[in-house]
């Protein structure tokens, strides 16, 4: 509005240019904006450290630690992948919900329920070979996560209960339920008075991939599950009818309904799929990293998954990249805490700022007017 009016020729030139080079703004949105966002978020994070009386020297050391701790060595990459795997899995679930216009806050509870189921199967059934026991435990996580989330989907379809309420309530219920389950004699580790489960048997543990290099490297076969699921979600969303129906009901539920799509069924399916993915994330944690369940073992994965899904713009590949970024920040953040003594919580600030800037291209353009030529496109948004 405040920009100088364009002459018709300029307008035409703009339009033609856009047709000739449509990749321009795509390139800006996909590369420049995220790079700027990460950069600005780190600078602001540094300012927060300065404000809390951390010396410049320490700030420098902490950012070096952040880098080396996330991608600086094979061990660091292993940690990054380990942290990213559950985030990507649960994030895919939340993203599927977003695609279908369904806001699933319940990933945290689904991670917990799926993880509990996987642990229970994982420490029972001794004597089975790994190629039967491990898939069984994973499947238990998938099924229980899917069923648990399916409750919210079914309630929405059958009664119209708002999914935000029902998933929040299901989260709260799952926290209490896990607290209770961890004290049941059959699940609680023998001889312990605190709530902790039996350890997962070796035959149900996701094998570590790099322990022949260094026994401390925790990256495990869950990484392949993650990659497979990224491909699977991509295929489902963009290459199948049901995926088209998901997207259609997310874009315009009324139109989808009039086109004959069964909205109730779609809601239940999407929710079950989201829960299955979150349950798999939980199973992945207990079978690959933790080896047992304790109160709050989900450790915020389900809530971070919402951020990952948003950051990845609900696209499976985007979710993968966003999950890797968050995993890197988490792994690097732990190194930062050890090396420079700066609290890991700083990472939360940086993560939130990155999301804010990536979600608001207009804001980044307002802060950095130079370097962006694709103004015409941004105005159309």
């Amino acid at each position, binding site marked *: 509005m405040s920009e100088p009016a364009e002459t018709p020729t300029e307008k035409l030139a703009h339009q033609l240019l856009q047709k000739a080079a449509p990749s321009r703004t795509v390139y800006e949105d996909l590369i420049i904006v995220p790079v700027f966002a990460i950069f600005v978020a780190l600078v602001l994070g540094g300012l*927060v450290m300065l404000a*809390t*009386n*951390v010396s410049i020297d320490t700030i420098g050391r902490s950012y070096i630690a952040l880098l080396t701790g996330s991608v600086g060595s094979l061990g660091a990459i292993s940690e990054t992948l380990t942290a990213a795997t559950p985030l990507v899995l649960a994030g895919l679930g939340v993203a599927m919900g977003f695609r279908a216009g369904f*806001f699933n*806050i319940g990933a945290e509870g689904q991670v917990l329920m799926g993880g509990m189921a996987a642990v229970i199967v994982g420490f029972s059934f001794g004597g089975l070979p790994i190629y039967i026991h491990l898939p069984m435990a994973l499947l238990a996580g998938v099924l229980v996560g899917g069923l648990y989330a399916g409750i919210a989907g079914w*309630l929405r379809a*059958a*009664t*119209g*209960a*708002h999914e*935000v*309420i*029902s998933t*929040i*309530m*299901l*989260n*709260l*219920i799952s926290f*209490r*339920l896990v*607290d*209770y389950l961890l004290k049941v004699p059959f699940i609680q580790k023998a001889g312990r008075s605190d709530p902790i489960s039996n350890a997962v048997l070796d035959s149900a543990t996701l094998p570590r991939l790099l322990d022949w290099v260094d026994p401390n490297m925790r990256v495990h076969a869950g990484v392949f599950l993650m990659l497979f699921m990224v491909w699977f979600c991509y295929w489902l969303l963009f290459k199948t009818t049901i995926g088209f129906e998901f997207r259609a009901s997310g874009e315009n539920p009324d139109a989808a309904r009039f086109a004959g799509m069964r909205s109730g069924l779609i809601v239940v399916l999407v929710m079950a799929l989201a829960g299955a993915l979150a349950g798999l994330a939980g199973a992945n944690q207990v079978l690959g990293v933790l080896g047992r369940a304790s109160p709050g073992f989900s450790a915020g994965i389900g809530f971070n998954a*919402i*951020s990952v899904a*948003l950051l990845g713009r609900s696209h499976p590949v985007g979710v993968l990249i966003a999950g890797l970024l968050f995993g890197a920040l988490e792994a690097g953040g732990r190194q930062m805490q050890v090396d420079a003594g*700066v*609290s890991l*919580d*700083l*990472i*939360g*600030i*940086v*993560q*939130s*700022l990155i*999301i*804010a800037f990536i*979600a*608001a291209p*207009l*804001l980044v353009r*307002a802060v950095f007017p130079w370097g962006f030529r694709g103004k015409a496109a941004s105005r159309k*948004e």
Partner: protein
Amino acid sequence: MAMDAVATTSTRKLDTAALRQSKIAGVILILLALVTALVFAQVDGGDAVFRLSRPTDPWVLPDLVVPAGPFNWIAVAILTFLGVRQWLSKTGKGTSLALGIGFAVLIAAFLVWATAGKAFSLTGMLQATVVRAVPIAMGGLAGVLSERVAVVNIGIEGILLSGAFTGALIGSLLGNWVGLIAAILVGGMFGFILAALVVTYRVDQIIAGVVINLFVLGLTSYVSSQVFSEYRFLNNAPVFRAISIPVLGDIPVIGPMFFQQNIFVYGALIMVAAATYYLFYTKHGLHARSVGEHPQAADTLGINVYRVRYIHVIMGGMVAGFGGAFLTLGLVGRFDDNMTNGRGFIGLAAMIFGRWHPVGALMAALIFGFADSLQQKMALLQTPIPSEFLAMAPYIATIVVVAGIVGRSRMPAADGKPYIKE
């Protein structure tokens, strides 16, 4: 003719929906009756003694002594009657009322069963109910204010947390009144940030809210582990004491609940009343609601949609800042990492449960608060039910109620949609 036909079909459709809900409610009520008969009515005599006042109170009410067995069989009878009535109902009317009465009877039966042969301070529990409801009600009210102008505020959790943090920090340095004002201002500031992101920069509303939650959680946890752990005097704020209102505070039961509390409880009640009056009985409230329902129409009438959204989201932020400050300045005087612990989200649930109405949100918050304090007291009474299940009960009840009655409750029509002025 055609219009008539359409009208009849849609009325009939509504009727079937109401009838189906009525049938569902009937089944739920009969199940509750069964639970009551099989569990709660199985008491070996003994009276349940509810203490209503302390011996030191000016007007002392005698203890309420309930014979447990007979009382609970009456409860079973009432529940069965209500259930059968809803099941057979041909009009589908009164479903909400019947379910409401049913749950109240169930809770009464449960209390009597748990207390049989023992004594228990009912007033104490009700007082705790109001205290626990305050932050949830304020979260809900903040949600009502911003969603009525069509801005979804997922960031309430973060704003509550920011209020709690600011209250503790500034309260420790400059006293509790300054701390409270600072908390309200910081809440308003986050409301402003949300409004700027959402209204001016058109960030997706959910993303903006999530960003605020993450940012506040990160910043407050960071400062508390980096600074508070070293300088403890920064996290030791004076707490507001309870002020007893003369005469009103002496009324049995009601007095301790509402008139022997600190300023947060009074403030919360006043704000709910003021917000109700403002939203539904003033010109500006009507403008605000029109912006939430149909921004284009509001714009054509000369209402500045952007400004109205900014103002209300900021007001919501201030309310949430006040509610957050309660956790530190009204209760413990000390900030802990993530001390809101999901209360903002429960506040959102209270808002939806309360049908986007301030009083509804307060009522829903009181129900959550009641369940919370009930669970605490029941742990003392040592019932055979594990305390985790008692803690779950309110959430399960919420799901049942939301599915059973509120069902397709209607949110403001433009909720969540950005408005782009032509």
